[in-house]
């Protein structure tokens, strides 16, 4: 019958002002530390899962490590691999050897690329980072500008605004990439179709990735934007003589981007998987292409390496989002939940 709230808002309210600056700093540090510890656990879990995947598969794990059945590894290679990974030892010992190798940054040797996995990743990480981070920034830019322009601008404009967001969020990236290529590269010839370094080469692939993400971010931003514009502090600001653009930019926007910031960690992950498609479509170098090759050529060390790197990116993105969130929402810095 009774549904008591655990901490009454009044109490929380009373306690907040009492927090000293020292406590706040400690709190903020504690939170990042928590994230880092959590991240290490996630990475360890990812490493363990990939290890299990290799060892639970039927057949000789040495063959998998050496490049899969398809590469017909030589006896000598198999022996070398067995020695390197300690495959003649019990599984638990192998596991620790594997973890030790990872800690030293030794991700094994890629048979398909004929070089250490770490080197393959090093060569390809920059173009993918450019592509995904560029896409994320572009997605945010599109979502924010679109919201600023179309939220609460009368029924027609607002409907067009939210309609386009739903449409773009639902567009398959592969199809979108082909359309963009067709129009801007082949037809109009404004941007290069393939390769292309520097900013000009980045435009079409980034757009391909960014547009659907912008649709998602736009939807959550719009909803928050609309409710922010209804709030009394907006009326307060208007009553001080602030114009429509003023309240949008200085007051509502900050509240509106908060849920999108939370989604950005997820968005970065989805961008990396999207990179697999986009990099092959636009013939770009990058981790996505490497992953595709690793999988199609059954190059186990390469696949594992890329999967672990993606896990690292996820973890780093989560921590970055937490830090970013505190920058955007000062309430977290001071009151500390």
């Amino acid at each position: 019958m009774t549904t008591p709230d655990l901490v009454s808002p009044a109490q929380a309210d009373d306690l907040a002002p009492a927090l000293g600056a020292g406590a706040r700093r400690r709190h903020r540090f504690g939170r990042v530390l928590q994230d880092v510890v959590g991240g290490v656990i996630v990475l360890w879990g990812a490493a363990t899962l990939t290890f299990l995947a290799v060892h639970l598969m039927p057949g000789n794990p040495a063959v998998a490590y050496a490049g899969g059945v398809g590469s017909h590894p030589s006896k000598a290679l198999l022996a070398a691999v067995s020695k390197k990974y300690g495959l003649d030892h019990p599984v638990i010992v192998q596991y620790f050897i594997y973890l030790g190798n990872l800690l030293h940054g030794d991700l094994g040797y890629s048979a398909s690329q004929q070089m250490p996995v770490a080197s393959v990743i090093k060569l390809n990480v920059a173009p993918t980072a450019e592509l995904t981070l560029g896409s994320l920034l572009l997605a945010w830019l599109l979502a924010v500008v679109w919201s600023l322009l179309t939220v609460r601008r009368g029924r027609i404009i607002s409907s067009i605004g939210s309609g386009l967001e739903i449409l773009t969020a639902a567009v398959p990236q592969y199809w979108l990439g082909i359309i963009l290529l067709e129009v801007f590269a082949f037809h109009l010839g404004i941007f290069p179709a393939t390769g292309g370094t520097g900013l000009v080469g980045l435009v079409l692939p980034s757009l391909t990735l960014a547009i659907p993400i912008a649709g998602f971010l736009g939807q959550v931003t719009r909803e928050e934007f609309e409710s922010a514009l209804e709030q009394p502090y907006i009326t307060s600001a208007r009553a001080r003589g602030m114009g429509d653009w003023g309240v949008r930019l200085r007051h509502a926007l900050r509240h509106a981007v908060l849920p999108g910031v939370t989604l950005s960690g997820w968005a970065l992950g989805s961008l990396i998987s999207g990179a697999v498609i986009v990099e092959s479509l636009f013939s770009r170098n990058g981790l996505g292409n490497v992953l595709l090759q690793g999988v199609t050529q059954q190059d186990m060390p390469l696949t594992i390496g890329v999967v672990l790197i993606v896990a690292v990116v996820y973890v780093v993105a989560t921590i970055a989002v937490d830090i970013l969130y505190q920058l955007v929402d000062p309430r977290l810095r001071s009151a500390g939940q």
Partner: protein
Amino acid sequence: MTATTHDSNLLTATDLRVSFGSGDAAREVVRGISFGVRPGECLAIVGQSGSGKSVTARTLLGLAGDGAQVSGGLNFDGQDLTSLRERQWRAIRGVRIGFILQDALVSLDSVRPVGREIAEPLRLHRYGPRSARWRRVIELLDQVGVPEPEMRARQLPGELSGGLRQRALIATAIALDPQLLIADEPTTALDVTIQAQILGLLAQSKQRGRALIVISHDLAVVARLADRVAVMRDGLIVEQGPTQDVLGRPQHAYTRALLDAIPSSHSRGTRLSPADAPALRVAPVRKATVQEAAAPAPLLTADGLVKRYKGPDGKVRTVVDDVSFQLGPGETLGVVGESGSGKTTTGRIVLAVTKPDRGEVRLHGRPWTGISEAQRRPRRRYIGVVYQDPLSSFDPRWTVQRILSDALPAEAGGAAARTARIRELLHQVGLGDDLLDRRPLLLSGGQRQRVAIARALAPEPEIIVCDEPVSALDVSIQAQVLDLFADLQDQLGLSYIFISHDLGVIHHMSDRVLVMTGGRIVEQGDAEQVFGNPQHPYTERLLAALPKVDALSPAGLAGRPHPTTPRREPALERSA
């Protein structure tokens, strides 16, 4: 009832109308009202929610809302406001007309330091360079009585207490010293002493020769501040005139009803709402004091309750400190105090949802807090609870029927018996069967609180803990709900622990009173004694800060019943 059309008016509204929507769907919210306010004068516009008073306030700033159609005359300092373009409005807002909204927690941007909010009108209207603006911010915070203004200016609204927050909001409105200040419910939701301070601040601005329009649902709040009062109902001003006339000799029945609805010492033992309001049966007027036959055994005793919480900074705070009291059958124990006084935590300990660190509560003479939940469970039905905001304690997807059915004890019988009992409960709280299929969101504030009361009654409790049960309600709805509590007590012999920050409500309802501050009980005793002859300086301060309708009118309020209690109250005299 004269609409002022003096030339000396700073602002004059003539036949002002505001409607929303168009064609058949058009709804006129303000239906032709006329009023005026002079420099150095305060006009209070009083009415219930939905009376159109807030829309009126916003219209004076050109902020009536999207799709609002405004007609009629609106003259400010010789300028016709009705024909202004948005650009021209912006040159008036904040500079010549300042606006203070209700509840600073949501009226200040929660993610910006208050100093930046106060600097905003200065920046918008080009008040000097950045450093000069900052100096002015500090000056303003100092002016509105915020201590340590340099530090406070850098804090977020959420880090300030309610009173400081409201002062900061006032600072944003007076930053450019506007000729006219409009305050919409400036003190609602504030503790009584803070309320008095805020009203004092507004009075200062009036003394400096600024015109003031105060919007409120509470006549008592505006009584001391206003020179003139306009009573609004359904978009019309039903009565308007000098404060003394309107409050002292109300002409309109609605004004009288508003005045009668204010719970206070005089209203004890009387009904607050008009007789035609939904009620159990015809007003069985309560006895002013319940001290019949030799004191019966207490239903509930609290002995030496202590509760400490560790704050996020690691410091331990004692929220409830050595609190002891008793509650007899059929008795109402009022617990009054400001926020942070520990009154809510005390209520939670009585409900056994918070465990005391020391001391214990006994129910029917047997242990209540010191036992396991499994042992307590079968006896939980004896104590019910009603909160301030019933909406958050309802599942919004449940119908009223389901909410009440859920609260019925399992042994309440089959479907037919349960339905009959649910109908009975609804009737007890003055609601009809037609609400059975309604969801909470579609109920009015008063109806929601009635459903919450019905839910508390469902397991046939002996005690109900009421935590600020009427604080969120308009004064006339509040009156009806308070009457309902009194009727239910008469009929069912309930005991109440009535927690409120509103001294009027506590005085109206309680047989005995606990006054709490800082977790301690500073005064405890018979309601008449505590309110009539307060012993502790804190109680005196609370009473002195209490806004009172009759504080200004020596003649008292004609036509108000005060049959049982003496009118003389030394502490209140001092406040006048």
